[in-house]
């Protein structure tokens, strides 16, 4: 049963407009791939989310990266520079996958108009066109496709051709679509689908006979692929029903009997096959497919009709008593189904349908209809199968689920802002009492440090000057300076004493001799000391810079956020209101679609009930009359 539902979902996708044909499988994945050599890890991170189909996070991360990149003075020095063209394309690509075709359209159009290689450019055009097509905007889709020019990646050729044909059909240009579909027929990717669409295109173009021939041929294709077998069944069903409409009963029966008994179109085929016999008065033969059908899942409209058709055939065969019993059984079954439908409609109106749709168990994937069916307390989704597979419903549902995801994110972020504010409060409470004393100590150290740095600069300048104008006296030791002064003092104070004068002169000579002869060594040593001092000063400056950074970080950890948080809170609040409004509107549309569908089915069943009641009474009368006649004859 699950396989059946998946097939129906696949085949009925976009079936609201028959002219648009059938698509083998809708693909949502983006086409961006990882670069051979990744130069920017944050770009790689955006890809990580994109490869999981988490479009919101991939776009948010890439947006942040691109915003930072474009804010740089020298973006060519940023690691994203190596991937910037791919990143600009990727963000549009992810937006397409996130079904933001307006914004993605602009981004991709910019990329398309940029200097890109033809295959990349054409891939972008294809994706943009496909999104417009899926958004039911075939005119724009065709307009975009007309910009395809030059080389197309080999793996995209069939997809592109099929999309082109579908878009042409959706624009009513069936004659233009036909040659494309003819060429696609041989390919494996669209086996069966190209033939089916070709048949439809030709019929719509007025080439009825040729179109039917294609449908007929398509109804005979051999394949083991479930989707191909299903489209083969659909070809037979469409052709068979066309023949029935035109009284081609034998041909219709022959074609309808090709439909597999376990395929998604088997119920309608069995019903039609029965009518093909019934229209020719062959009620006994009509009973064969109808009896099989009447035993199947009762929520199917064809099965419900068969519940009336079987007793109708018995009545036509004159077996009125059997007909009466079967009409009674149908009446009872319809009553049960009407009750179930009423309950389902009430359940939808109470909001349970939407609750089920956004439940954690149900995620957006190819099997969502199946999953929905397996949920408890879900309305009778068998009745909604066709509706749920329709394009409008799917688009509405995806929007609703996207909005639900946004709602959850916004609620979480509001909580995050509360946490940020608490964090800031705690930081302020911790730092503010500490900082005045720290700042005071720092100022004292800072002034001492500045003084020492000035001294160092002074020494350096002096040493530099001594390289060109030697000044040995500058390098005299403290002891030598004291001795020099003492000798000068003695010389000044001395009484006339020739011997003492000579002695002072000798000592001064020795002192000067030492100072001058040791000058080079002392200069070298002074430079070594300066070098050692520079190392210490470098370490000091690093420590100084580290302190300044930490000091700034301390203040920045709690200052300057109030306005940003207030603005974010306001934006989140507004966004939450908008999301709530849009969810209500989108949810209402979904509910109305579901209620309309169920009400329509309910009304049909109500009509069947009336018919069954009349037919039951009529069959009883006829059975009674027949019984009376039999007795009279006896």
């Amino acid at each position, binding site marked *: 049963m699950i396989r059946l539902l998946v097939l129906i979902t696949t085949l009925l996708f976009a079936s609201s407009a028959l002219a648009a044909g059938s698509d083998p499988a809708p693909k949502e994945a983006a086409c961006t791939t990882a670069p051979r050599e990744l130069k920017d890890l944050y770009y790689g991170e955006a890809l990580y*989310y994109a490869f999981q189909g988490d479009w919101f996070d991939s776009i948010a991360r890439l947006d942040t990266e691109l915003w930072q990149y474009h804010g740089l003075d020298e973006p060519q020095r940023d690691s994203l520079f190596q991937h910037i063209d791919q990143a600009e394309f990727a963000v549009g690509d992810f937006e397409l996958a996130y079904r933001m075709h*307006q914004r993605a359209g602009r981004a991709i159009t910019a990329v398309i108009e940029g200097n890109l290689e033809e295959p990349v450019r054409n891939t972008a055009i294809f994706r943009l066109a496909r999104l417009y097509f899926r958004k039911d905007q075939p005119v724009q889709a065709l307009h975009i496709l007309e910009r395809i020019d030059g080389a197309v990646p080999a793996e995209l050729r069939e997809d592109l051709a099929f999309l082109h044909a579908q878009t042409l059909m959706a624009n009513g240009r069936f004659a233009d679509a036909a040659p494309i579909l003819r060429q696609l027929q041989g390919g494996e990717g669209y086996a069966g689908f190209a033939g089916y669409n070709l048949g439809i295109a030709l019929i719509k173009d007025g080439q009825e006979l040729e179109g039917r021939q294609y449908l007929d041929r398509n109804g005979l294709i051999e394949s083991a692929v479930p989707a191909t077998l299903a489209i083969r069944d659909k070809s037979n069903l469409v052709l068979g029903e066309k023949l029935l409409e035109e009284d081609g009963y034998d041909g219709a029966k022959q074609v309808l009997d090709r439909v597999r008994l376990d395929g998604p179109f088997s119920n309608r085929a069995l019903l039609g096959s029965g009518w093909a016999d019934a229209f020719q008065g062959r009620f006994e033969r009509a009973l064969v497919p109808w009896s099989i059908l009447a035993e199947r899942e009762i929520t199917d409209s064809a099965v419900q009709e068969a519940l009336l058709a079987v007793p109708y055939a018995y009545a036509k065969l004159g077996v009125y008593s059997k007909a009466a019993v079967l009409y009674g059984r149908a009446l009872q079954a319809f009553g049960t189904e009407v009750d179930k439908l009423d309950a389902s409609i009430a359940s939808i109106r109470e909001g349970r349908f939407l609750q089920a749709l956004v439940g954690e168990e149900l995620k957006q994937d190819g099997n969502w209809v199946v999953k929905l069916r397996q949920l408890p307390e879900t309305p009778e989704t068998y009745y909604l199968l066709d509706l749920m597979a329709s394009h409008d419903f799917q688009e509405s549902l995806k929007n609703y689920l996207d909005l639900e995801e946004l709602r959850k994110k916004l609620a979480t972020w509001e909580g995050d802002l509360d946490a940020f504010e608490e964090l800031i409060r705690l930081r302020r409470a911790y730092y503010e009492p500490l900082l005045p004393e720290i700042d005071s100590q720092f100022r004292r150290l800072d002034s001492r440090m500045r003084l020492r740095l000035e001294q160092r600069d002074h020494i350096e300048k002096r040493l530099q000057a001594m390289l060109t104008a030697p000044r040995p006296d500058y390098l005299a030791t403290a002891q030598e300076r004291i001795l020099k002064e003492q000798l000068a003092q003695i010389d000044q104070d001395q009484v006339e004493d020739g011997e003492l004068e000579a002695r002072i002169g000798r000592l001064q000579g020795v002192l000067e001799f030492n100072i001058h002869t040791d000058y080079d060594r002392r200069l070298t040593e002074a430079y070594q000391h300066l070098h050692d001092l520079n190392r210490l000063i470098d370490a000091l400056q690093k420590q100084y810079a580290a302190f300044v950074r930490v000091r700034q970080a301390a203040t920045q950890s709690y200052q300057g956020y109030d306005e940003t948080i207030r603005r974010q809170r306001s934006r989140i609040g507004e966004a939450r209101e908008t999301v709530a409004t849009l969810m209500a509107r989108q949810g209402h549309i979904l509910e109305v679609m579901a209620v309309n569908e169920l009400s329509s089915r309910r009304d049909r069943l109500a009509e069947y009930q009336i018919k069954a009641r009349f037919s039951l009474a009529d069959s009883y009368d006829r059975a009674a009359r027949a019984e009376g006649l039999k007795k009279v004859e006896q």
Partner: protein
Amino acid sequence: MFGGLRTVILAIAMLMLGIPAYGEEFSKEQMKGLDEQVQDIKADVLGIAAQLTRLEEKLLYPSDTQVAVFLSLADGEEFRLDAVEIQLGGKPVADHLYSFKELEALQKGGRQRLYTGNITTGDHELQVTLSGKSGGSDFLRTEHFTVSKGVGPKIVEVTLAEKSLGFKDW
């Protein structure tokens, strides 16, 4: 009673074409208008997300102390990655159990930021433990690397492989 058989057949055909009109209906224009509004709010919320990311980074991971550990999968690796745990400075800071989708995203070349945090300048030991399955048997691999933190954010990448793990300092 069943005189209108042709009508019934036509009704069946109509069922295939779409939803019959009933009750309240919505025009294509209404649906398109709503869809455009949904796109607008998506753009707004993405804008909020980008702002919040910047705010969060500034508030929680200042560039002076920020460290980020990214994971990637070596080319051609076919083992099934089950879990990764990392320890920084001897303390467990992050671990992750992998879903099929996440593994596939890594295989396609995506990079996972497993950990963002704060550390002081200097050297820190990074221990990475990988558990997975290869050829039907489980395996566990632990390797150690050194993260040298200077001024400015520190970004490192660990490349996961069955035989040995790679380390790149960005």
